[in-house]
């Protein structure tokens, strides 16, 4: 069952209740924001549980088993525990910076969902700069991480923050270039246009078919952007204890933790929209296709994390600038030739 008609029905109901169009717009926008926000929070809790299960099964363990069916309520309990904990600010911390860092990271993680098409007609706002907006807004996360590193006044936190800054700035370049290939073929940066350009031909118009190199570059760079193994140097436990979030506890720690999992879902949702045909698919409703493809991408990222060892700092930088960047340029040239040939 498609969800878009239900939202349209609710909107019509608001109008028929006697609300003016401006007020109905406002109410439906706030309602939509609350809906997307709570959906993502539940999803993040699910992803934390799923990651623990996957890691356990890869390592031949069971993982959480006690609370609920196969421990499905474990992360809910963990979240409740974190909410009850004392909110500690270190005495030597830069109080303002320390307070705002998790707020910025948390807000930016959710801001990207304004332009993500969850299904047919299910998009909060179809900006004509869609994909560029996501790239721009996610750079704020890095500022939040650096603020956390600096504000904590702790050498491990500072090192973690600096590492993540260097890493994200380096991997941002191949990431943007790999997406640029798709924008060149589509001729638009709007997320709806990108999805529409991949419909039909029984799935053979998905961008991954024509640009497999672009997809591989995107996945590697996105793993680095989300700070996940094999690129999780900002929080390398053996060297940095915990990285930029070492001084955080309670609610603020939970905000960083949730934001990390929301970010992982974001990069997977972008991969789905840009390379895997978005919500296009037969039989099932569009939002199920979107969710299924995105969760499959999330599974791949989790699989990476629990099977690959971590890179060294110098390997990380050399890989970005000497391997991924030249490959991204090769991909751009190939896409340019392809686009001319298709015309």
């Amino acid at each position, binding site marked *: 069952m498609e969800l878009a008609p239900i939202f349209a029905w609710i909107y019509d109901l608001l109008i028929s209740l006697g609300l003016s169009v401006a007020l109905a717009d406002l109410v439906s926008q706030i309602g939509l924001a609350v809906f997307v926000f709570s959906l993502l929070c539940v999803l993040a809790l699910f992803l934390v549980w799923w990651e623990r299960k996957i890691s356990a099964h890869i390592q031949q363990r069971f993982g959480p088993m006690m609370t609920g069916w196969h421990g499905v309520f474990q992360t809910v309990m963990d979240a409740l525990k974190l909410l009850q904990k004392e909110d500690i600010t270190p005495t030597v911390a*830069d109080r*303002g*910076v320390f307070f705002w860092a998790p707020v910025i990271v948390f807000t930016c993680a959710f801001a990207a969902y304004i332009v993500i098409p969850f299904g047919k007609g299910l998009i909060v706002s179809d*900006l*004509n*700069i869609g994909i*560029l*907006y996501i*790239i*721009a*807004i996610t*750079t*704020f996360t*890095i*500022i939040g991480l*650096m*603020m956390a*590193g*600096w504000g904590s*006044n702790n050498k491990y936190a*500072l090192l973690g*923050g*600096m590492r993540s*800054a*260097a890493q994200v*700035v380096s991997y*941002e370049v191949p990431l943007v270039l790999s997406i640029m290939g798709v924008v060149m073929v589509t001729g638009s*940066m709007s997320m709806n246009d990108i999805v529409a350009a991949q419909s039909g031909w029984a799935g053979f118009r998905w961008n991954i078919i024509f640009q497999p190199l672009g997809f591989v570059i995107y996945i590697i760079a996105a793993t680095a952007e989300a700070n996940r193994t094999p690129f999780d140097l900002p929080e390398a436990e053996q060297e940095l204890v915990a990285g930029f979030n070492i001084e955080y506890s309670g609610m603020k720690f939970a905000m960083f933790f949730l934001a990390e999992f929301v970010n992982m879902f974001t990069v997977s949702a972008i991969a789905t929209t840009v390379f895997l045909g978005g919500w296009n698919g037969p039989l099932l409703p569009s939002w199920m296709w979107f969710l299924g493809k995105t969760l499959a991408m999330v599974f791949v990222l989790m699989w990476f994390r629990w099977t690959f060892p971590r890179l060294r700092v110098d390997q990380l930088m050399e890989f970005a600038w000497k391997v991924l960047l030249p490959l991204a340029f090769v991909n751009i040239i190939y896409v340019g030739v392809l686009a001319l040939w298709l015309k």
Partner: protein
Amino acid sequence: MEAFTFYLFSFLIIISALAVVTMRNIFHCALFLILCLFSVAGIFVMLHAEFLAAVQVLIYVGAVSILIIFAIMLTSRLAGRDAPVVNEQFFLGGFMSLVLLFSLVYTLKETIFRVVAEPPAPQSTLRIGQMLMTDYVLPFELVSVLLLAVLIGAIVLARREGN
């Protein structure tokens, strides 16, 4: 609503710009610089220049400001110490600022801005791309060559001796 948003962004720009030059903690200055540049992007959005706004955030917040913060973090001499707000060049600097302010106000007063009644084209990004490839192709190519030269220069400078 539009007026309210405009005044909100203008207020943020002015307050954060003042904070950049008056704060004593240089890390806080950098953070207020980010807020200032972000508010300018907000003004761009109000003017229907979405592409410009996104690029403003991407380049200035995502690259320039991160480099500035990175430099502050790596410079142990600056870390955790109050930087002086004024130095011996106070009067010269103040004089130059006044000259700049005067010329800006004069220019804004004397220029006749062309005002169009119809709303701007919805596909401004498309138009920018077409203009860059047709009417303004020479400046575009010149900037590209300049950037290439800067890139090569950076690589030459960063290269280790003896390699």
